[in-house]
């Protein structure tokens, strides 16, 4: 943000210059996922990863409420917060972990964690993450570790 501010001031408010600075910034070119997923993004991507039933809105909305992003329920008129600090709270991580564990136990018998890891993250999953999934004691645990991996928690 400081770099963009400087570009704005240096160029006397030339928006094309600010946009170019934004595109030139190293963060924009970092291939690894950077941003911590909101509950909405996390629930949707998890359900996709586990080949969930897209019409099953009940479990999706229940999960969203449980993870702190209930439908039409922002606590502030500004809407949902957008920074990692707002979402990556200790309680939120634990709640995500429990939700994912339940889901993985339900879906575990039908899915191969290696295959799911390849589909949803591929080379983006860290070597340590892939190893942890591989070492999991059963399918459900492998899925839970995959979905809670730092890479899957971000986009």
């Amino acid at each position, binding site marked *: 943000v400081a770099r963009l501010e400087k570009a704005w001031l240096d160029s006397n408010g030339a928006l094309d210059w600010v946009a170019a600075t934004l595109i030139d910034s190293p963060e924009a070119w970092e291939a690894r996922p950077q941003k911590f997923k909101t509950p909405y993004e996390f629930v949707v991507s998890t359900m996709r990863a586990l080949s969930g039933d897209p019409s099953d809105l009940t479990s999706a909305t229940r999960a969203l409420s449980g993870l702190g992003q209930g439908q039409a329920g922002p606590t502030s008129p500004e809407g949902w917060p957008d920074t990692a600090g707002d979402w990556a709270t*200790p309680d939120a991580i*634990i709640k995500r972990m429990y939700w994912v564990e339940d889901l993985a*136990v339900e879906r575990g018998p039908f899915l191969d964690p290696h295959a799911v890891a390849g589909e949803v993250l591929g080379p983006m999953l860290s070597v340590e993450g892939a190893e942890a999934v591989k070492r999991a004691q059963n399918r459900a645990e492998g899925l839970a570790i995959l979905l809670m991996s730092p890479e899957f928690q971000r986009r």
Partner: protein
Amino acid sequence: MSPLDSTRRAFLAAAAGLLLTPLSARAAYAAVGPKKLIVLICRGGMDGLSVVPPIGDPSYRALRGAIALGGFGEPGGALPLDSVFGLHPSLSFCHGLAQQSQLRVAPSVSTPERSRSHFQSQDVLEAGTAKRAAGVGWLNRTLTALGAAAPSAISVGRQSPLILRGPAPSASWSPGHAATEMGDVGYVLQDLYRNDPLLAPALARGLETEIRARIATRPTGPGRSSGFGETRIGAVGAGPAIKLACRMGLHSNWAKPSAD
């Protein structure tokens, strides 16, 4: 070996072997009487060469190098099972059972499964077949083979594991929220997050709070069950005769987890 041992072994051999016919299984079961079979599945990697080291194998020391265990009779050495195989010295309790013919180890046994997938290997062990074969476990097939004489079976855990899954009915039960088929995911994640400046502290604080909350809300009194270890299920005579529990994490400080 007492006569009781021999009939029990006949039953186990009949149940586990390839020659499981309804007749032999029923006869063996009838001979055993109202005994209970408890199957514990210890999932997770275990270094079998440290648990049951082949001390008598001439190549053992050379191939095992610095992590080879001491020979039979040496101080801190392996405890002999026979002239070749021994037990890790930490397993003296198990060794005592083995000497009373109450424990049997099956070392150097493999399945045809060669994918190196942890998950598929477990499926093969639980299905008792070379392929996953329509998701029927060998314990369930045993129930079918026993027919009308089949005892009731219960699995401990939130989901019936493959070994007991299939057409024959069985019950399942799990203590509270404890996901017995789920290892300690929080523990794995702590390791996975260790270089993550955002997630590592959040997880650590979350787990800490979680433990405090559990201690604070833990019920006291005789009905309390804090998990698998204190669970009493069918401890009296009327309980199901086949019990199955899955307990995770056989990783001990002396048994290095294997790579797969």
